[in-house]
């Protein structure tokens, strides 16, 4: 199963499908690989339950399994929740420390120097 995500092309296929459903032909046009190769990657993703196939008339569309998207959302949601809780704890501690140090010279944090990039 790990193999489903280990391939860079499959990762790119998933990234493209995140933008919306697509056909094999559309995907092949946007990737440096052949149609049969795209089909093969899609089969792997389908068997890993990451991607679903839907027929509309004569065209076959592939799209992300919505369950995957819901899980991604839940994951990002909890990441921000944890981060904001960490921030709130830090702010409380800083303000308490600041109160204790009142009257003393506040330690100032050096501003990060502008980095040349």
């Amino acid at each position, binding site marked *: 199963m790990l193999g*489903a995500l280990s391939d860079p092309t499959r990762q790119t296929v998933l990234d493209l499908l995140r933008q919306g459903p697509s056909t094999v032909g559309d995907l092949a046009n946007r990737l440096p690989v052949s149609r049969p190769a795209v089909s093969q990657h899609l089969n792997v993703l389908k068997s890993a339950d990451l991607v679903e196939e839907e027929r509309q008339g004569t065209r076959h569309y592939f799209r992300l399994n919505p369950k995957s998207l819901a899980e*991604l959302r839940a994951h990002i949601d909890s990441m921000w*929740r944890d981060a904001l809780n960490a*921030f709130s704890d830090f*702010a409380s501690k800083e*303000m308490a420390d600041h109160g204790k140090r009142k009257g003393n010279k506040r330690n100032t944090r050096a501003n990060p120097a502008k980095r040349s990039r």
Partner: protein
Amino acid sequence: MGKEKETNATHAPIRQSVHVDCTREDAFRLFTEGFGEWWPLASSSVGGNDSKFCAIEPWVGGKVFERTPSGEEHDWGSVTVWDPPDRIEFTWHPGEPEDHDQTVRVDFQVEADGTRVTLTHRNWHGSGVATCGSHFARFVSEQLVVA
């Protein structure tokens, strides 16, 4: 926390908020200047336990980034709005190529006994699975492969 529930499509922006017991000015300063001190790098970073430093450069165009002890840097995004003490906004693409679709906006609003800090992450569904392997998306790779 998370008082607002987005009930519609799964693509709706992700929103989280928290109360802090200080003024907006202090909240904004601690959030940005103190970013490297409160951000949970071990769980949310590209380098995981290898990364010991992260920061927000305090100007429009400044980078949000992490750095490993060996000096390797990973950009997470760039500041697009720098408006103390009201708001900061930046693009968001940790572990991925530059991407202007995903944005994170942080608002600082006065409320009783302090400040409400509200974070809004838009176009999060564009998060590439390409980040798997990074700690940011460890969940994605772990969960999706067993799906």
